[in-house]
């Protein structure tokens, strides 16, 4: 590995702090009592939305890199992914504590019975192995299998978007926009895979 210059380290710290701002803002609003008329709902909605936003940001890294040729953006991907997991965990805790009040038996029943909750739980559970294997040691240990494992993020993203769209009474607005962004990010990958396969099979390189 090449030695990293100092500037990206500073940028990384800035991104790290910026990623904590939404969480800090929620805590501050909770302490001041300005989370709105239904504070529990605000906490649940905001942690969920930020989990989804960071998930989409994580998924945007590779397309951004390919489109702009800014290869160093890859070094922020792990952090973005871990923040997605951080907000998803907070979101799960609002469900466990505020909605179910630690009634694990009722929670399990709820998860099994309701597809909208099931989708959210699938999205969250799929993130756990990814977070656990995000360390340098695990990347080395798993080798090529690491990349295969981390493709689970596509499923997690789809489950998260479905969860959000199903949650609302009318499928309109924000949930649909996020689903559309996800669709674009995944479609870009499908398109690249297909064109790579075509290049591999066809004798002529694609013209531009």
């Amino acid at each position, binding site marked *: 590995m090449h030695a990293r210059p100092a500037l990206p380290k500073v940028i990384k710290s800035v991104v790290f702090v910026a990623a904590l701002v939404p969480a800090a803002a929620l805590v501050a609003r909770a302490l001041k009592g300005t989370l*709105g*008329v*239904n*504070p*529990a*709902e605000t906490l649940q909605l905001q942690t969920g939305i930020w989990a989804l936003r960071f998930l989409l940001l994580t998924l945007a890294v590779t397309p951004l890199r390919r489109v702009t040729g800014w290869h160093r953006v890859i070094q922020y991907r792990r952090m973005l992914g871990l923040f997605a997991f951080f907000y998803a965990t907070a979101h799960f805790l609002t469900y466990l*504590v*505020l*909605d*179910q*009040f630690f009634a694990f038996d*009722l929670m399990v029943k*709820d998860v099994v*019975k*309701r*597809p*909208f*909750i099931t989708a959210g739980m699938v999205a969250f559970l799929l993130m756990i192995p990814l977070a656990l294997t995000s360390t340098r040691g695990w990347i080395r240990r798993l080798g090529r299998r690491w990349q295969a494992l981390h493709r689970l993020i596509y499923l997690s993203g789809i489950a998260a978007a479905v969860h959000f769209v*199903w*949650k*609302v*009474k*009318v499928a*309109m*607005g924000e949930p649909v926009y996020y689903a559309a962004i996800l669709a674009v990010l995944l479609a870009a990958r499908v398109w690249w895979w297909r064109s790579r396969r075509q290049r591999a099979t066809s004798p002529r390189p694609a013209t531009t």
Partner: protein
Amino acid sequence: MLIRKPGEIPPSEITDERLYVRRREFMRLAGAAAVATAAAPLVACGSEAATEAPAPGGPVEQSPLAGYKPRVVTTDEKLNTFQEITGYNNFYEFGLDKDDPQRYAGRMKTSPWTVKIDGLCNKPADYHLEDLIRPHALEERIYRLRCVEAWSMVVPWIGIPLGEVIKRAEPASKATFVEFTTLLRPSEMPGQQTDALQWPYKEGLRMDEAMHPLTILAVGLYGKTLMNQNGAPIRLVVPWKYGFKSIKSIVRIRFADRQPHTAWNDANPGEYGFYSNVNPEVDHPRWSQATERRIPGYFKSHRTLAFNGYGDQVASLYAGMDLRKYY
């Protein structure tokens, strides 16, 4: 149900003081028939905009209601504050978010307001709002409001029994249902420019539900006329049903011999039934209805009661009915 003596809770304890102050900016029609004042602030709201400079479409000020019978029906539960009741609403005509109605409902003009009563009855008529209300005595009804989304509030409504209005119209004996329609005016109701629901919003009750003494047409809360986001100038309140049954800003009441179409039932019949009685035993397909979050609490720890706690009064309406089937 507790019938309380008036005066147990001084109004200053339950009403936001800032509103008392702001009220002075408006015409006070002292001693006038209560609902004659309903339209008054709308004349003044233009000048209000100049002094307070609220966002366009912001809140329209209310006027005080006088001479209502306090606490005709009440509860010993804590009332939700005026800010909670007026700042957290489902009124999709103004947007999907809970604070959209507060932001945008001010655009809706509620004066003049006409309610058409027609269908199967002897005395169909178009009523000016005041003429519809004036013959009846206003009553305060402190009801629990249980939203289908599993949150709840306690609201001090002021209104008149719907049954009395219905009797005046002399419905035909074959009129077994009542249909209600909300104002359709996309220019003032931005949500109606989207297809979130089929507009205008419609709701319906069986005749016996409509005639039940707990069912009211509300014109105010907390001693004043309704804010637009709460369904001004006149709305239905059926306390034993999920909130969406209590249709807002009503322009038409029609008597029918068939079960009318209703907005949410049309939009998603598997999730929202025609009856939609509060029932902890029948879950919404996407969430449990066994518990609720009493605003502004953090925990969804409040047990939901059958018929929202009004079972003693209304359960007999559904004797012999399978409430799982007729949800």
